[in-house]
């Protein structure tokens, strides 16, 4: 009997490794899920008002999208965001570690899906939100609680399967 122990242990390790193949080790889940969005106050892109703060995100479910003009993944998800905006989904953009001019030019060239674009030029708000690379997109409930965080580009599939149900649920 004890001679069978090694094969049993090995099967366990194999199962674990098989699981590993299906998972992306680079995605780090956010500890902020289920917690209120961090406090912040940012100027609008280009130094223009309106200022953006926590209070502005409450009252209805919204998407908060961290993007930057230097980020390739943002271009990938951009058409999806444009489509969502067209469908009337409210998206708040936060330009992360960028310059006002580059951010504005990028939006001009590719289109602006955001209701409001705030500028987090130093990445301070990003730090509080636990952003570690862009794009990252948060689903916020009406009371300002973070429901979901998408790390990497938002694809149609991610929207359909993960984010849309949450947005719909938060509304009701």
């Amino acid at each position, binding site marked *: 009997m004890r*001679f*069978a122990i*090694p*094969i049993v242990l*090995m*099967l366990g*390790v*194999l199962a*674990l*490794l*098989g*699981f*590993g*193949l299906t*998972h992306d*080790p*680079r*995605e*780090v*889940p956010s*500890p902020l899920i289920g917690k209120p969005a961090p406090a912040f106050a940012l100027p609008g892109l280009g130094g223009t008002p309106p200022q953006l703060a926590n209070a502005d995100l409450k009252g209805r479910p919204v998407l908060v999208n961290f993007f930057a003009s230097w980020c390739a993944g943002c271009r990938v998800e951009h058409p999806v965001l444009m489509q969502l905006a067209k469908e009337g989904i409210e998206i708040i953009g936060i330009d992360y570690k960028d310059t006002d001019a580059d951010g504005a030019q990028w939006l001009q060239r590719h289109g602006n899906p955001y209701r409001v674009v705030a500028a987090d030029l130093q990445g301070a708000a990003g730090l509080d939100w636990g952003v570690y690379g862009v794009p990252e997109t948060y689903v916020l409930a009406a009371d300002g609680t973070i429901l979901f965080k998408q790390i990497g580009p938002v694809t149609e599939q991610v929207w359909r399967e993960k984010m849309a149900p949450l947005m719909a649920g938060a509304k009701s």
Partner: protein
Amino acid sequence: MFAELGHFALILALAASLLQVLVPAYGLVTRNGRALGVASSAAQAQFFLMLTAYLCLTYCFIDKDFSVAYVAANSHSALPLMYRISAVWGAHEGSFLLWGLMLSGWTLAVSIFNRRLPQDLAATVLAVLGFISMGFLLFMLITSNPFERIFPVPLEGQDLNPLLQDPGLIIHPPTLYMGYVGLSVAFAFAVAALITGKLDSAWVRWTRPWTTAAWAFLTMGITLGSWWAYNELGWGGWWFWDPVENASFMPWLAATALIHSLAVTEKRGLLKSWTVLLAILCFALSLLGTFLTRSGVIVSVHAFASDPARGVFILSFLALVVGGALTLYAWRAPKLASEGELKLFSREGLLLLNNVFLVTACFGVLLGTLYPLVIDAFGLGKISVGPPYFNAIFFPLMAPLFVLLGLGVFTPWKRGNLRDGLRRLRVPALFALVAAIAMPFALQGKSSLVIAAGVWLALWTLATAPIELIKRIRAKPTFAAGLLSVPSSTWGMTLAHTGLGMWMLGVVCVTGYGIERDVRLGAGQEAELSGFVFGFEGVKESKGPNFVSDLGTVVVERNGSAISTLEPEKRLYPSQGSVMTETGVDVGPFRDLYVALGEPIDKANIGGDWSLRLYYKPMIRFVWLGGVLMFIGGLCSMMDRRYRLARAPATQRSTGHAEVLA
């Protein structure tokens, strides 16, 4: 043309490996001696086919044939010839080809040196090796063919990863592969023992030299990797507990346990099933390392090229080979009965404890490496397990092993007398204690309990390592006669244990007394570190064959006299856009002075201030010297006469026959 030839040779090699498995298997079942004999011929054919494939790929590199996708991805027209040759194993596909070549080389060696093995055992060993080779060849042909062409043909290659454009890295991977692949020989012998049901001391004498050789290469490979990392990366460190490093360290720990348990099995006929299990474990861990580094399951920088198909293939192969072997083990191992008494205070008892500690340490490393995956699998989030964990686990598990080592080399086989042992070991123990307390103060002016404990372990090991050697020399009337009578396995053991002690001494000193400073210096300014004055003379631009570099000059002085001029460098390889750090190191037997160039404070002005890292690294050379001694020790052990005498039975029979005739 050569790419196609190479590809064709690979396919033929696959066919040869099939023959190498199937025909001997048929021979075993039908007791057909001629079918068994095919194993050797197939192994030899396979080696020449692999060699052909390998040379073809090398030719493609030398010829700068960018129509071969692998060459285009890993070479460049400005790449020096030496690196074009070594670029063959510079990335995934080619390194697998090298791996396959080495495997067929080891198989060839087995087929040549073990002609005197009982035919069924030899054929089984070769068939198992053929099976492994078949797996690797299939993997190469299906998922990672190095000979694939691309169209349109690029005008220029993407260049070899600059990280690999270093002499240290030319020899590090092949050495390491020799170790990994060598472990498959021990595995094949273990499986053959399970299949044939024969595991006697002759089997051990056949297995031991192969295992020791694999272990020696593994040791050297790891040592070279550590040395390279120290020189090339600019962090002054030599071991980081990265999953990639752990992947090589786990098989090393298991193989170290194996060479010791083989000693017990040879001398006393004990621990047979355990030895077989360890041999399987060693190879399983080297396959696991392959899986971890090439599948992307664990974040290691290697994981980039992760193609899920590769991960699935390697995992299935691992399941098949190791699962098969362990199933066979569960079924047949109960037959490998060991007889005889095993006492705690005997050489074999202490060697069993050695195995306990080594295997536990190996398990600790495995646990730390896989635990993030476990946590993730149970949906508990993501955690990181890094150096603080491994250091906290590893050293407490290893310290008792060092104590046992001194005790073990002294204790005779079968029965030792603890009281007698302790009495005789009093001298080395006390010597080590006094030195451990005094030495750090004498050399560095300060000490701590941990440092004293570490130095004690190191000196205790160094003091007890030559005991057996001395005993053997004293047993003869004259020193010269004694020296000549020492078998090379004793030299090997003494050297390897001395190496371990030196390694420990190096580790303790460099960890306890190493100094690191980040400084910002302009040309003409200087910084002081442990009595050494580092004068920075600025940075100038310089040019290499396929890179441009910022070359700094740092003059080191002590008490006003110049010691050395160091030239730390930052190289930009434009074809890949990557920057490599070349450190400036002044090597000394008891200390290194190490300078790495950081960044210019003002990026636009390389003539301005720079950030630099300065290191004082006491005894760091001992870390690698230890590894080299272990390597040499392993080679000595492997050469021992009694392994060659293992062929004796055939000869003996013929002399016996002659006597009868007379």
